[in-house]
């Protein structure tokens, strides 16, 4: 089978790249070996929360110029990063995903642990606070759904009370959700959201919240609304009228993340892109610094060919990188990986310190071509968290690197062919 571009990896980076290329009239194929990390999203996109030395970042676009040379943003180029950052909101809006926030400014989100964390843009309905010192409301009602263990109201209340708000926690019971509770493990955010996607159930929820409401000016809700039916989220906001409604992420699975994934995939497929899920690339023919063809488990003998290939296979979780006791490798093409040889140098013994392994990945040249045996592979591009040069968790740059590198790769591919 022949395509213009084959993208390995169907997460945020692969889909942004695929949609961008489809828009330019390319025939693309995405191969994804399972669902992506978007399923565990915080509901927000980080661009650059802090510098590699730990300095907090207020204006990420400005900060990019101070990053070291090997950083993916430096490879993409400061001007390009600024342009893509400026474009991001529109790109997602066109895909049916509304983002709030400004390209050149970091704000704060409230985490499910009740902590204020710096971030860049949030998906849809997550409120962003301008600072981590200002309260989001005077009197706050924090509402959970009875029996839902993955939304910790006590943590959130404590975090908000630290800033001087008065909080009250309550849990509402919805009959339609009671059947989920009969199952010991399946009262999960997405299963709840599937039921709440029915407008009449969300209406009941709204009625319960109204009944519980006293003089609170702000209402905090778990992000379990609008998995496939976005209008239920809007109905909550409009029905609760003058009160401020703030959604806070739950523990995984992430409803806003999955909604984004579904939306991006749908846009991609409707634009004619092919998406293979549950398949793994297990063969790659590379000759003279060029990928000739690849093969997958499901395709067996039938090879897949393209003019360009994009590696957006993610990090360890998505098996873009594989760690063995004595080495780390890139499994599809056997590309050169930036990482120390000895296992003891992969990690810090304190969990919440900077974990070095997060920054491992494939090195690329300025054209985002990764290296194999020291030579760049000229029709192959790398995008997203498979790239080395940044610690996406410590710096808070995962989504930005995924989106901007994908946009850059799409530009490089179409420019090359023009």
């Amino acid at each position, binding site marked *: *089978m022949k395509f213009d571009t084959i993208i390995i990896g169907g997460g945020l980076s692969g889909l942004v790249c695929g949609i961008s290329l489809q828009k330019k009239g390319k025939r693309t194929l995405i191969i994804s*070996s*399972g*669902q*992506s990390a978007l*399923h*565990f999203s915080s509901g927000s996109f980080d661009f650059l929360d802090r510098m590699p030395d730990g300095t907090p970042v207020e204006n990420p676009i400005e900060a990019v110029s101070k990053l070291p040379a090997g950083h993916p943003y430096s490879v993409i180029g400061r001007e390009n990063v600024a342009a893509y950052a400026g474009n991001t909101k529109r790109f997602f809006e066109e895909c049916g995903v509304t983002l709030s926030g400004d390209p050149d400014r970091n704000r704060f989100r409230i985490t499910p642990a009740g902590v204020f964390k710096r971030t860049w843009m949030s998906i849809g309905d997550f409120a962003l606070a301008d600072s981590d010192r200002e309260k989001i409301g005077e009197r706050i009602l924090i509402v959970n759904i009875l029996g839902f263990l993955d939304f910790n109201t006590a943590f959130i209340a404590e975090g908000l009370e630290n800033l001087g708000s008065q909080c009250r926690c309550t849990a509402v019971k919805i009959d339609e959700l009671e*059947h*989920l*509770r*009969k*199952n*010991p*493990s*399946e009262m*999960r955010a*997405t*299963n709840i959201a*599937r*039921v709440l996607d029915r407008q009449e159930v969300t209406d009941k929820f709204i009625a319960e919240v109204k009944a519980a409401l006293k003089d609170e000016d702000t209402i905090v809700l778990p992000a379990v609304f609008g998995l496939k039916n976005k209008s239920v989220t809007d109905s909550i906001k409009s029905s609760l009228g003058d009160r401020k409604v703030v959604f806070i992420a739950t523990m*995984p*699975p992430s409803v806003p993340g*999955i909604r984004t994934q579904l939306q991006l995939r*749908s846009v991609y*497929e409707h634009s004619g892109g*092919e998406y*293979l*899920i*549950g*398949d*793994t690339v297990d063969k790659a023919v590379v000759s003279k610094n060029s990928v000739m063809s690849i093969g*997958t*488990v*499901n*395709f*067996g*003998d*039938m090879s897949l060919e393209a003019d360009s290939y994009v590696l957006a296979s993610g990090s360890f*979780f*998505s*098996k873009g990188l594989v760690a*063995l*006791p*004595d080495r780390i490798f890139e499994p599809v093409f056997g590309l050169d990986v930036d990482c120390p040889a000895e296992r003891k140098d992969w990690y810090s013994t304190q969990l919440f310190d900077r974990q070095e392994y997060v920054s491992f990945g494939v090195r690329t040249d300025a054209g985002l071509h990764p290296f194999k045996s020291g030579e760049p592979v000229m029709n192959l591009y790398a995008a997203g968290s498979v790239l080395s040069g940044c610690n996406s968790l410590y710096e808070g740059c995962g989504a930005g690197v995924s989106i901007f590198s994908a946009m850059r790769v799409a530009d490089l591919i179409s420019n090359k062919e023009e």
Partner: protein
Amino acid sequence: MKMQENNISANGFEQCIKCTVCTVYCPVVPVNPLYPGPKQAGPDGERLRLKKGVFFDESLKYCLNCKRCEVACPSGVRIGDIIQSARIKYSRHSPSLRDMILASTDLVGSTATIAAPIVNSVVRLKPVKAVMDGVMKIDKHRTFPEYASRTFESWYRKHARASQDGYRNHLSYFHGCYVNYNFPKLGIDFVKVMNALGYGVHLLGGEKCCGVALISNGMINSAKKNAAHNVGLFKESVENRKYPVVATSSTCTFTVRDEYPHLLGVDNSSVRDNIFLATRFIYGLIDEGKVKLVFRKDYGRKIAYHTPCHLEKLGWGIFSTSLMKMIPGVTFSMLDSNCCGIAGTYGFKKENYQVSQAIGKPLFDQICSIAPDVVVTDCETCKWQIEMSTPFKVMHPVSILAEALDLEATAAANR
């Protein structure tokens, strides 16, 4: 250091890192609280069962075996296989008469075919439905698939067999129970299309039911016997005659390729790569430039394509959709990835009827909103379910090809 190079446990249960993605894509969880869910029933439960067999829970029977969890899993865990293997290993539940009848598709099929007109009208009668519902626990709402009055095999012997040796290329056709007993027309369409493409179509010579219904109804020994028998026929075809094996049913294809080794322990490794679904086989021929398709100029259809669960698992939906998109005059809509809810014999059972229909509802709603001329899918049970639950007719891609191809011109082009 060679140790820990290839960490793999049975069906990959220990590769699970508890990310919960499988629970998002399970069609049963949202509609049936009695089902523990793929994560608990699968990898979580497996650790407990290895500790003590008492942790096996009969509620694992609510798993549809649709494998959507496996397709979604980012860790390569064969969740459905873990669940079905646990049922095989631990279940002490013996199949009821109803389950045995539903599972024995070939035995029941051959009996019913003889008396097809009577059977078809009898199973439509209200009193009979009431008995089936009350005594047999087959849901009364269920429309039974009709039995054909003549099997595909007898049609083949009478009308096709003699001419098949005259073609340049050859294949063996695994028609499955459905084509043989319920819907010979699909088999006839397949022979027409393949003949036009220059392929002689041969029967395997005594194929047995692939066994999918036996597996899901817990009749593992019978399933193993069928599997061993069929693999013997595949070997004869692939190794001795050098004929690839092609099937029109996505579920039969999936079963003989993957369930045989994974669930039944029947080794098919020497023939597996030569067992194809019809659309995969035809697309492969086109891709390699071995055949040419000539379409009719006057063809026009608004098609909505539904990917059956087992075809998603095979990863071959792209071949069916690509073929449909090739046809000039076809307006193509892709239906969202959803289980239709029938899952073979699952939806026939009274206790599953409500769940089955609830699972399929999003799909039925979407079909109705698109209102196509025809729904296309590669699975016979999806066809029953969709035809029963929507006003729309369902066809197999091969039957669409049979309609859309200028068969004579195609035959001429491939001579």
